[in-house]
C-alpha cells in the first residue's frame, strides 16, 4: 500500500469550506474523503475539483448523452477517445469535433477565442489527423449592446490571429446577434482533420513501465481553474476578475507541435497521446491511464516550467497551451524526443505507466498526490438532476404579427440589412480560408466544400444552430437544427455522414434548464437516427448565464458530408439564364422563430411539427440531384425565408443574375415570403429536367415558381421588383456600415 501524501508548507487547511471554494459540494467532498479514507491534500483537492467539474466530468449531462447514436457503419474508432472519426473512403478517415470556449471569450475575447481554436486543433491532431479546416459558431448579444463591438472585434481577431498563423483554413461558420447573449456570448470552435486509417492514434495507455513524455510549451501559471471556476460556474459582477484563468495562446508553437506530433506518430513509437487541455496535466495523465485500466506516476520536478517556484498544485492544474502528453514505447523515448527537438520543442520524460491503478505525483522527493486513477478520471459523480418543463411550454401562443406590417419590399430591405442575415464577409475576410489548397467552396455559401487531394473525393461542412426555435421548443428546435445542417450539406451535393455537437445551456441545477438540455438531446438523437448520421464527438457547455438569466438553449451542430466525386458539388447561386427555379418542401413554411418575426413581431409562436421521413426524403433527393447532375444550384431557405433565398441566389460572384417569380395567390403572405421552416429548398434546373425532379423528390411538394433572368432584377409577382445590385449593396454594407457608426 502507498503512504499518504504529505501536506506542503503553506497549504491551507482542507475542509468542506475549502472544497466549496473549489466548486465542490459538501456531498462531493464527503465522497472524496470516503474514496481516499482520509482528507485530501491541497494538491489532491485541486485535482479533484477540476476533474469533477461540470466541464471535465459531464456530471449533469453524462446520463443523458448515452442516448445519442454514436455508432454507424462509417464510424471508426471506439468511444472514449478524444474525438470520433468517420470513414470517407480510399483509406481516409475524417476526425472532427466542436468545442465551446464561451466563458473565456466573454472575459478575454481575443485570447479566449484564440485558445478555443488552439484547443480544438489539438483534439484533432492528437488523433493522428492533420487538421485541414476550421469553422466557428459565434453568438453575440444584440448588435447595439455596448459590449458587442468589443467582443466581436476581439473574438474575430483571436480566431484569425490563431487560425491564420497555424495554417489551418477557416472555411466558414455562423455569426448571430441576439439580446439573449448580452451577458454570455458563445464561441464554439470546430475543426476537422484527415488521417490515413492506419495512422489513427489512441489515448489509451498500455504497458506498465512505458515512459510518459511531456512535449510542447513549458508550463506556466495561466489557466489555473479555467475548467472549474470559470467554465463551470455562472457569471456575476465579479466575473471580470477571473481573467487570469484564461489561457494565452501561441499559434507558432502550435504549428510546430502539429508538425512534430504528426512526424512523431510516423515513427510508430507512440503508444498513446492526449493533449493537455482543460485541467492540463491532471486530466491528460489520469484519463490515459484510466482508459488503459493502469496507473501512472509523475515526477513534477521534471516538468518544463516557464518560471521557478510553481507549486505541485499549479503544475497539475495549469492550462498552459500547446502541450501534449505521450506514452511512448519503452526504449524509444530518445527517438521521439529527437523529433520534437528538431522542431525546437520541449520533450521530457516526466513519469511512467504503472500497473497499480494509482495516479501518483512526486515532487522534491515526496509523494504529493496519490489517488485511485478511476476516482478522478471515471468515477466523478453522475447526477440525475430534476427537470421540469416551464408551465408555458408547448402551448400555442398568439401568432399575430404587429398590425402595421411592412410591405414585402420594406420587409425584404429590413431583413437583408439585419446583422443576422446580412453578409458576414467583413468577418470571413479576416480568416485565411485558402491555405492547404483544398477549399473548393469557402465562406458564404450554404456549406463549405473541400477536396481530398489525389482522389476524387471531397467533404462538405456546416455548423448550424437555431436558438430561436430552441427557445420556443427545445426538442423541435434541436431537430430543426440538425435538419438545417443536413440540408445545407445536401444543398452542396454531399451526403450527410456524421455529426459533432456542442450543447450550450444555462445552469443545470435549475429544473427548467435541465429540461431544455434533455429535450435538446432527445431531438438531436431522433434527427441523427433519421438521417443515419451518428454523433461521433461533442461537448457540453453549461452554466451559460449571468445573474440568473440563461442564454436561449443553443445546441450547435456541425454536420460533415461526403462526396464520392467532389466535381459534382453545387453552389447556391443561379448559374444559367432561362433555368427554371423551383422550390421543394417538406411542409409549408411558418414565421415561427423567423428573422421576420424577430424584427416585426413576437417570437412567441408554436413550432410546426417536423416529419423526419419527409426531411430525409428531401436530403436524399438533393444528393441524388447532385450526383445525376440534374440541377444547377441549390440553396436552403433559412434566415429571411424564400425572398432572401431568392435574393442571395442572384448574387453569383461571376455575374449578378435576376429571377422572375410567380407565386400562387395565397402565397403572397409574409409567411410564404419570409417564413423559415420547416424545410424548403430553392433549386434551379434546366426545364427539361422538371419531370425527373418530380420523381426524385416524390412525394414532396415541388413547385416551379419562376426562371433565371439575365436582367439582374428580383421580381416576385408585382409585390417585389428590385435591382439585384442595390440589394447586394444593402446586404454587403449592412454590418460594415453599422460598425462605422459611432
Amino acid at each position, binding site marked *: 500500500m502507498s503512504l499518504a501524501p504529505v501536506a506542503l508548507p503553506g497549504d491551507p487547511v482542507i475542509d468542506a469550506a475549502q472544497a466549496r471554494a473549489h466548486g465542490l459540494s459538501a456531498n462531493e467532498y464527503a465522497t472524496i474523503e470516503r474514496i481516499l479514507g482520509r482528507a485530501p491534500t491541497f494538491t489532491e483537492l485541486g485535482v479533484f475539483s477540476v476533474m469533477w467539474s461540470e466541464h471535465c466530468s459531464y456530471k449533469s449531462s453524462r446520463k443523458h448523452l448515452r442516448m445519442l447514436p454514436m455508432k454507424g457503419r462509417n464510424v471508426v474508432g471506439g468511444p472514449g477517445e478524444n474525438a470520433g472519426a468517420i470513414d470517407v473512403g480510399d483509406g481516409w478517415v475524417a476526425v472532427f469535433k466542436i468545442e465551446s470556449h464561451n466563458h473565456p471569450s466573454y472575459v478575454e475575447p481575443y485570447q479566449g477565442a484564440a485558445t478555443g481554436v488552439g484547443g480544438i486543433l489539438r483534439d484533432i491532431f492528437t488523433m493522428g489527423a492533420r487538421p485541414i479546416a476550421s469553422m466557428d459558431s459565434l453568438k453575440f448579444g444584440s448588435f447595439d449592446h455596448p459590449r458587442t463591438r468589443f467582443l466581436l472585434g476581439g473574438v474575430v481577431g483571436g480566431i484569425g490571429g490563431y487560425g*491564420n498563423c497555424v495554417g489551418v483554413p477557416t472555411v466558414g461558420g455562423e455569426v448571430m446577434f441576439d439580446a439573449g447573449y448580452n451577458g454570455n456570448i458563445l464561441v464554439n470552435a470546430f475543426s476537422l482533420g484527415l488521417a490515413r486509417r492506419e495512422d489513427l492514434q489512441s489515448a489509451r495507455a498500455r504497458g506498465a513501465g512505458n515512459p510518459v513524455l511531456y512535449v510542447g510549451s513549458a508550463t506556466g501559471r495561466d489557466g489555473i481553474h479555467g475548467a472549474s471556476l470559470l467554465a463551470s460556474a455562472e457569471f456575476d459582477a465579479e466575473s471580470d476578475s477571473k481573467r487570469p484563468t484564461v489561457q494565452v495562446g501561441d499559434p507558432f508553437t502550435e*504549428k510546430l507541435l502539429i508538425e512534430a506530433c504528426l512526424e512523431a506518430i510516423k515513427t510508430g513509437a507512440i503508444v498513446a497521446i492526449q493533449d493537455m487541455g482543460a485541467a492540463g496535466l491532471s486530466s491528460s495523465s489520469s484519463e490515459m491511464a484510466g482508459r488503459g485500466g493502469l496507473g501512472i506516476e509523475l515526477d513534477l520536478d521534471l516538468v518544463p516550467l516557464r518560471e521557478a517556484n510553481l507549486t505541485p498544485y499549479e503544475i497539475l492544474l495549469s492550462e498552459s497551451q500547446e502541450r501534449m502528453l505521450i506514452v511512448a514505447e519503452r526504449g524509444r523515448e530518445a527517438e521521439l524526443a529527437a523529433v520534437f527537438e528538431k522542431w525546437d520543442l520541449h520533450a521530457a520524460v516526466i513519469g511512467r505507466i504503472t500497473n497499480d491503478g494509482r495516479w501518483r505525483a512526486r515532487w522534491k522527493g515526496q509523494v504529493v498526490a496519490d489517488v485511485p486513477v478511476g476516482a478522478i478520471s471515471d468515477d466523478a459523480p453522475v447526477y440525475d438532476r430534476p427537470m421540469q418543463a416551464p408551465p408555458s411550454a408547448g402551448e400555442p401562443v398568439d401568432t399575430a404579427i404587429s398590425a402595421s406590417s411592412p410591405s414585402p419590399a420594406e420587409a425584404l430591405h429590413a431583413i437583408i440589412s439585419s446583422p443576422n442575415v446580412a453578409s458576414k464577409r467583413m468577418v*470571413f475576410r479576416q480568416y485565411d480560408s*485558402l491555405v492547404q489548397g483544398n477549399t473548393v467552396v469557402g465562406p458564404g455559401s450554404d456549406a463549405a466544400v473541400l*477536396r481530398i*487531394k489525389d482522389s476524387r473525393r471531397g467533404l462538405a461542412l456546416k455548423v448550424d444552430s437555431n436558438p430561436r426555435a430552441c427557445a420556443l421548443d427545445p426538442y423541435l428546435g434541436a431537430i430543426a437544427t440538425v435538419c438545417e445542417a443536413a440540408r445545407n450539406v445536401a444543398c452542396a451535393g454531399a451526403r450527410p455522414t456524421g455529426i459533432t455537437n456542442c450543447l450550450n445551456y444555462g445552469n443545470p441545477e435549475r429544473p427548467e434548464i435541465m429540461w431544455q438540455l434533455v429535450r435538446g438531446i432527445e431531438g438531436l438523437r431522433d434527427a441523427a437516427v433519421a438521417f443515419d448520421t451518428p454523433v461521433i464527438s461533442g461537448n457540453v457547455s453549461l452554466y451559460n448565464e449571468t445573474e440568473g438569466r440563461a442564454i436561449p438553449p443553443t445546441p450547435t451542430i456541425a454536420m460533415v458530408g461526403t462526396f464520392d466525386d*467532389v466535381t459534382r458539388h453545387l453552389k447556391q447561386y443561379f448559374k444559367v439564364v432561362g433555368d427554371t427555379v423551383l422550390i421543394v418542401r417538406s411542409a409549408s413554411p411558418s414565421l415561427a422563430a423567423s428573422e421576420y418575426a424577430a424584427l416585426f413581431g413576437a417570437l412567441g409562436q408554436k413550432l410546426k411539427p417536423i416529419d423526419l421521413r419527409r426531411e430525409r426524403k428531401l436530403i436524399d433527393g438533393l444528393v441524388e440531384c447532385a450526383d445525376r447532375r440534374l440541377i444547377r444550384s441549390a440553396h436552403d431557405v433559412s434566415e429571411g425565408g424564400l425572398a432572401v433565398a431568392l435574393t442571395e441566389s442572384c448574387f453569383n460572384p461571376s455575374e449578378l443574375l435576376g429571377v422572375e417569380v410567380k407565386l400562387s395567390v395565397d402565397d403572397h403572405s409574409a409567411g410564404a415570403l419570409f417564413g423559415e421552416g420547416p424545410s424548403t429548398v430553392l433549386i434551379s434546373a434546366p426545364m427539361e429536367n422538371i419531370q425527373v425532379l418530380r420523381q426524385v423528390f416524390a412525394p414532396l411538394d415541388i413547385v416551379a415558381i419562376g426562371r433565371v433572368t439575365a436582367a439582374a432584377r428580383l421580381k416576385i409577382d408585382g409585390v417585389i421588383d428590385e435591382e439585384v445590385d442595390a440589394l447586394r449593396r444593402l446586404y454587403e454594407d449592412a454590418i460594415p456600415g453599422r460598425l462605422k457608426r459611432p
Partner: protein
Amino acid sequence: MKWGVVRFPGSLDDGDALYALRSILGQDAAMLWHKDETLGGADCVVLPGGFSYGDYLRCGAIARFSPIMKSVLRFAAEGGLVIGICNGFQILCEAHLLPGALMRNRSLSFICDFIYVRVENAQTPFTRAARVGEILRLPIKHGEGCFVAPAEELAQMEERGQVVLRYVDEAGIESDAANPNGSMRSIAGVANDRFNVFGLMPHPEHAVEKMVGGEGGLKIFQSIIGGAR
C-alpha cells in the same frame, strides 16, 4: 528544372507550393529545411507564405538570419532565381534582396480575398509567359502587405521596370478601391534590379487549378519554367 521550397518554422504555404510545382506543373521540387545550408541543386528557390518564427517581431525579420538564408543570398548573388510569396516577399525585403518594406495593411486587419493584378513588366523571368497589361486573378491573404519605399527609390524602380505587378480592378484599372492593403502605387510584386529575385504578396501557388482558386497563377510558374528551357 529543379526547385527548392524553403521550410521555415511557421511556414504555412510551403506544402501548397510544393503541391503546385510537383502535382500540377510536373516539376522536380524538394523541400529545403531552414537549418540546412544546402539548396539541393535547385534552379529556382521558393520562399513560401506563412508566419516564419511566428512573426512576433517584424514579419520576416527573424527568418532572414536562418542558416539557409546564407545560401539563398549567395545563390541570388550568383544570379539564381528566387521567388518570395507573401511571407517570402517580406523575408526578401528584410534580407535586402528586394527594395522597400511591407507594413500593416491600411485596414489594420488581415485580408483574405481574391484580387486582380496587372502585369507591368513581361520581360522578367517570372512574367515572360504573360503579356504587358495582362490581368491575373489571384488570392491574397496577409496582414502586412502594404508596400512602401522612399520616393526616389520608387521612381527608380518604376524607371527600371522593377514594379512587376500592380493591384487593379477586374477591368485592369488602378484605383484606391482596387488596392487592398494601401500599397504605394498599388504595388503587388517587385523584382530586384537584376531581375533574378522576385517578391509578391498574392499567392500564385493557390491559383493553379480550375476548381480550387482558379488558374491565375499558372503564368508565373510557366514563365519561370519556360525560361529555363
